[in-house]
């Protein structure tokens, strides 16, 4: 598989179809991976592809606006590219998507505790609710060959964990999130890593008016995290990068997943499936549910 990825990347650069390839390379530790930006055809041999390629590289696309970029994208990464296209942050003609068939990626944190006895690799939780599949958008698709690698065990109900926390009482939930958010150090890693957090001036940085307290306090932390979650409503494609990047381990995916479920149930809408679909929260449809109007 990797040979075909390398070959395609080499060809794209050599024929000048793209100016730059964004892909993965092995990190110096010899196990994990790092993003790599290649603009010379001969350097494409650095590229790798395996279950350790956790990062959603689409986050880098907006840094190269106006240039022709080739990008290696898993299904989840491709969905965020779709949202970026839908929101006019990218031009389709400027990007060449090398779609890769994915069987799930590892959870970096679980890697530390993995042992040969574990029957299953330390797959990331989010891969349990994603059918390992083809990206919904690509220019060329690199499929897996031969024996398929082991895939994560799929959850029967992708929103099982959401349902569990929904069942808790409001005060229980509040207490839980109070604890979680109290750890937040407002480093904004979640924002920096999120491919969909592209605002030129984030509301968290605005001072006139000052939307949220910047102090490291529960009030400010709460407002920040909830605001970010709301800004992702109908847009988040659950690439899980925010949770992975969070240095204090706040389970941010739980919030995003809850909103994703609400959006699906209320509007039968899933983000990042088609660039033609209208952004959920900025358009009106006369069939939208309105039972909340009383």
């Amino acid at each position, binding site marked *: 598989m990797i040979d075909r990825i390398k070959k395609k990347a080499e060809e794209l650069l050599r024929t000048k179809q793209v100016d730059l390839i964004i892909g993965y390379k092995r990190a110096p530790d010899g196990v994990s991976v790092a993003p790599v930006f290649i603009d010379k055809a001969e350097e494409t041999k650095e590229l790798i592809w395996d279950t350790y390629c956790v990062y959603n590289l689409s986050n880098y696309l907006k840094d190269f606006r106006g240039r022709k970029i080739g990008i290696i994208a898993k299904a989840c990464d491709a969905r965020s590219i779709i949202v970026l296209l839908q929101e006019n942050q990218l031009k389709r003609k400027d990007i060449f998507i090398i779609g890769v068939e994915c069987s799930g990626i590892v959870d970096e944190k679980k890697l530390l505790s993995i042992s040969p006895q574990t029957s299953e690799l330390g797959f990331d939780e989010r891969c349990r609710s994603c059918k390992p599949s083809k990206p919904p958008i690509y220019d060329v698709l690199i499929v897996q060959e031969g024996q398929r690698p082991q895939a994560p065990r799929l959850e029967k109900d992708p929103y099982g964990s959401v349902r569990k926390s929904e069942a808790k009482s409001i005060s229980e939930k509040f207490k839980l999130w109070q604890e979680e958010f109290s750890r937040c150090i407002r480093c904004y890693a979640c924002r920096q890593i999120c491919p969909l957090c592209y605002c*030129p001036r984030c509301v968290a940085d605005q001072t006139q008016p000052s939307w949220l307290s910047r102090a490291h306090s529960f009030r400010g932390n709460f407002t920040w995290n909830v605001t970010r979650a709301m800004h992702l409503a109908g847009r988040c494609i659950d690439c899980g990068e925010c949770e992975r990047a969070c240095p204090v381990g706040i389970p941010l995916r739980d919030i995003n997943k809850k909103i994703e479920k609400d959006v699906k149930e209320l509007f039968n809408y899933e983000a990042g499936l088609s660039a033609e679909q209208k952004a959920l929260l900025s358009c009106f449809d006369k069939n939208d549910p309105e039972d909340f109007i009383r």
Partner: protein
Amino acid sequence: MKIGVFVCHCGTNIAATVDVERVSQEAAKEPRVKFSTTYRYMCSDPGQNLIKEAVKKHHLDRIVIASCSPSLHEKTFRKCAEKAGVNPYLMEMANIREHCSWVHQDRVEATAKAIELIRLALAKVSRNKPLEYLYIPIEKKVLIIGGGIAGIQSAIDIAFANYPAVILEREPSIGGRMARFDKTFPTLDCAACILTPKMVTVSQSKHVTMHTYSEIEGVKGHVGDFTVTIRKKARSVDINKCTGCGACYNKCPVRVPSEFDMGLGKRTAIYIPFPQAVPNVPVIDRQNCLWFTKQKCGICKKICPFEAIDYDMQDEIIEEKFGAIIVASGFTQFNHAVYGEYGYGKYKDAITGLHFERMANSSGPTGGKIIRPSDGKEARDVVFIQCVGSRDEQKGLSYCSRLCCMYTAKHALLLKEHNKDAQAYVFYIDIRAAGKNYEEFVKKVQDEYGAVYLRGRVSRIFEKSGKLIVRGADTLSGAQIEIKADLVVLATGLVAQPDAPGLARMLHIPYDRNNLFTEAHPKLAPVETITSGVFLTGACQSPKDIPDTVATASAASVKALGLMVQDRLQREPLVAKVDAKTCSGCFACIQACSFTAIEEEEIEDKRLKKKRLIAKVLEGVCTGCGNCTAVCRMSAIDLEGFSNRQIMEEIEAL
């Protein structure tokens, strides 16, 4: 910053519940407040003078008026501020009447709330920026949607003032419902005799353009500058070549039921709906024309001496600009199929009032004879049933259709005029004859024309030996009634056109649960809509008889002319504004804007040293609804006069 606070008593409207003096004293203690006072009626001349003098004396630069809803007196106080030398947008109102004194009883608590509301207004006004009025040009042309009596009257009035009017009519001729009527109550003028001169006036006017057989496809823009897309349906006859000689429809071999005659008569496939049609140019009904269905015949083309027939004619889409729009799209009849007991559809001799009109008309399909459609025999005993659909929340409409009492009385009279031996029976719930000479008319029909009025409902109609047996109750005598009728006429109610909601959405005007268009104010702005530049007339708003329709048509025309005579239109500067540095160009705002007031704009981003697209608000189009500001994640789009800072400041003050 020197803010003045002016607390209004509104007579006792506010003062009875709110301790205005205390409110004023408390307001005076707020920071930046330099002056505070109360007055009996702040909106009165002395009240306004008080404001002006205070501004001068205390060098006030911002004003808070604590009084009624801004929807009533915001304009008054903006003007007052302007005259006092303060920018009108440095004035804020605290609504201590509708939001306070009218809805509370407890004086202490209401007073506390009034003080709180003033504190919010003070917080907001401290963040206000002086704004300048916007001026937009006005396209000096009025679109009239619908060519019935309402549209015709509007066109005549607009043209009389020497402004161009365009009538859009989807039928092949103007004239609308009124053209189908025989006589009109209560004076019994013949409808055609009073309508056709108006139709001719329209067709002869150099200021009126008619787009008949045309439909509205889309409306963009705003008051002063509407761009309307019109589909001119293919008439298959060249309107410029045709002289209306009639050779084509005299020779056309096809016969189909005439819509104009409610199916009682026949028309040809190439036809004019009625002899006085304007324009007097036929149209080919392509569904029934042999040329279009079987590629045969072609007689009309051969026979036309002016080569006006064009089988290849296509629909034409045109775009025109207008400064104002008058909606005169009219009504349709209530579909009484829900009343199985009245036998309509089942019995040929159960007809509607509009059928009766066509029969009574001497140029109608029966030549003025009131007959039984089943066998063509002249009808003698005729039962009229009122309130078919109207005033029946269970099966029909919650409202009264207003004209059925009168047109039924007229029918009863016409019946007797057409046949001396005939007898009319009228089943009614109440008789509503509230109009000039209306009651007298009904009385005349009862007394002089012998119409029998029975107060009650009909329970069943069935056929027996060629007659329709009408069973009902006379609730006044308590008797059960059975009438052997030759003919039953149902006075069906008036309902909105089925496509009214679509038109309303196009025009951004609201409609009610009956799909009738909603006026801006039921009493004080009866022909205006909340969309400025769009006016209402006739039965598209509520059932109206001809006098009321004509009156609202002229009223709407005056409103439209009021715009036409202005050089430019002053608009409130309360519009959205984009901060170029913050805008990411996601264009969620474009999707959210119901008024197509936002465009993409390319800017040179100095920070990125690149060109990029951002949102741009068209100030003339923006209505200041704020939809865009709600969807903007980066809050790059803000509403002047209701800016994020102002609202945030208000919340902080709470």
